């Protein structure tokens, strides 16, 4: 898709929702409003919610909608500036020093600089969409570093000086809330909580995402998944699992399995925990039949 001005596309929440739907992402009114506001106010968008509700997908869809490249920074415990901003290639620097002998050499040249996601975003000539995924997994120190980056969109490399963003990136942060984020970060962002979709919306998502699934199947899967999610499972199924279940059941049905049986046999793609499987097994037949009714 050709690059267009972000603000031209984001004329209203409804326009954003339509554009996202064209990128195969169904956003409800609240999410579309939050995305619209984030783009128009030029603020980062903080998406929180349970795993599997489509936070990362939302970022991908926004990038696709705007025709921008997505740069993803996956956070983890222990991530620091060297993993997020930049790192020098020390081995190459040492080799270069050895080869240079008596000659002068600039060991802080571009060829020794390894640009990590945040620096990549700043150096890009065009606007990028930056996804900082699972920020809650990083430490407080990293959050503080990110805060500095998000306020000025610049990085100071002692040996090279300050690098400023050519075009301010669109930033999306996601969090599973495994720890509370600093107030300072929350207040710099436009915030949105993504919950699991209701059955009708999930059926629409399944129809949009799955390959060749009948509408009735999508509705049945959505209804059954809603019931299954309300059970105390170790790993509640996400939207992607629901789509896979609908796909798998359809394939089995085409292979000759009758309906309730096809759903039961395909359950392995929905529930991926042995204990959960044995917990839900006695009820599964009834849940599927009720959903198909």
């Amino acid at each position: 898709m050709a690059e267009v001005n972000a603000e031209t596309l984001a004329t209203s929440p409804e326009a954003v929702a339509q554009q996202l739907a064209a990128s195969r992402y169904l956003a409800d009114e609240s999410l579309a409003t939050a995305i619209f506001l984030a783009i128009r106010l030029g603020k980062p968008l903080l998406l929180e919610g349970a795993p599997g509700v489509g936070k990362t997908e939302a970022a991908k869809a926004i990038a696709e909608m705007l025709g921008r490249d997505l740069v993803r920074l996956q956070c983890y415990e222990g991530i620091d500036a060297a993993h997020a901003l930049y790192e020098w290639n020390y081995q190459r620097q040492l080799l270069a020093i050895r080869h240079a002998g008596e000659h002068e050499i600039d060991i802080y040249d571009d060829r020794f600089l390894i640009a990590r996601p945040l620096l990549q975003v700043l150096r890009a000539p065009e606007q990028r969409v930056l996804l900082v995924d699972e920020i809650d997994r990083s430490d407080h120190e990293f959050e503080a570093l990110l805060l500095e980056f998000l306020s000025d969109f610049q990085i100071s490399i002692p040996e090279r000086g300050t690098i400023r963003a050519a075009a301010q990136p669109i930033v999306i942060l996601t969090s599973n809330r495994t720890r509370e984020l600093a107030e300072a970060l929350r207040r710099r962002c436009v915030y949105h909580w993504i919950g699991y979709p209701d059955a009708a919306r999930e059926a629409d998502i399944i129809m949009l995402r799955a390959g060749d699934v009948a509408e009735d199947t999508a509705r049945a899967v959505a209804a059954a998944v809603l019931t299954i999610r309300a059970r105390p499972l170790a790993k509640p199924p996400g939207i992607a699992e629901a789509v896979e279940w609908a796909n798998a059941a359809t394939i089995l049905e085409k292979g000759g399995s009758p309906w309730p049986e096809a759903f039961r046999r395909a359950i392995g793609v929905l529930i991926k925990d042995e204990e959960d499987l044995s917990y839900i097994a006695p009820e599964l037949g009834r849940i599927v039949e009720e959903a198909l009714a």
Partner: protein
Amino acid sequence: MTRDVDNPISPFTGRRCPEGADEGRRHGGQRPAPPLTCLPASSPRERGEESLPRAAAPLLGFGRLLRRYGFAVAPEQVSGFMQAVTLLGPRSMADIREAALATLAPPADRRDEFEAHFQSHFHGNTSAVVEGDADEETRIKDDGGADDERIEAEQRQEGGELSSALEQLSARDFQRDDDGLTAFRRKLSAALPARRSFRTVRTHSRGKLDLRRSLREIVSADGDVPSPLLRRRQTVPRKLLILIDVSGSMKLHTAGYLKLAHAAVQGADRTEIFTFGTRLTRITTALRIRDRDQALARAAAQVDDWDGGTRMGPTLLAFLSVPRFSSFARGAAVIILSDALERGDHAELEAAMRRLSACAFRLSLATPLAGDPRFRPATAALTAILPVLDDLIDGSSVKGLTDFILSLARPAPTAATMWKRVS
């Protein structure tokens, strides 16, 4: 300008809000009220707001109202809120609500409180209820169990009204008293079991070569190779997760347990506290308040099931089925403060404890019943969960518990081994 209550004119766009524009949204049943139902108490002149349009006053007022109720709302958030409202039109009150949610970013566990303030400020609806527990992720799963068959207590024993599956809602106050919790708070962080972090620290021996610093040294020493500089993975204290039973049978102990929980949250960064009875409530945020009385009062207001029944198995399963909660238990020292008097079938309790044990570093159950020298883990529920417990200890005194928590880093024989020896 005349105000038409049914069909108000937008103060931002000058357009008339379409009739019924609000309907079909989340608060579809409500009548759209003009956003000027509550004017701020002090005069705009005193606050230097004369230059702002009159219509902005309710928006500013909402920010101030939230601050009064302890929401952290920064000035830039309020200006973001006003910008957002302008950007959205607004075409209806739902737009103002969406703008408020997106820019003022209320914490997820105070969403209901935020909604109630919004309703009272913009709709003049003061009857909106402020709920204590607003955690969207647990509510569904908690509700699932609320309709369960209710079992009456079969017998009465010393220690309270005993565990029953009946839900009784009540509130409680806490008085200050003195105990050894200050020392406990000071020692806790250093006493918790440690694990290796992925973050590295400088070290003089036993580590990996620190190329970044080494290269700087080499360049500054003009090519000479100095002694190697090393880094090693640092150790960090493990998370501490305390689950407190607040059912009727634990009534005598919950006040002490909550004070202990407050000291633990204050003493170690990564401590999480939940209460459970007939439902599950996360009270960590409330206990982060430094002042103990305030923190406990806030926590007391959040918990709805004081002195009610117990559904230990289902509530623990609900805890484990919320991914972010179960991640609190992963690799953590988990302590359950409960008498484990589970009524009826204990299969769910057994499943929950097995799962907890599998993801926790150490799983301990502290029961006040173990304070009696004649106590033996003989009930069906305790016998079933004993093999997965690392510790089954006396939870009858706060002092005993603090000593136990401070000894968590030291290895000890498993609960089954210990109690076999005693029996």
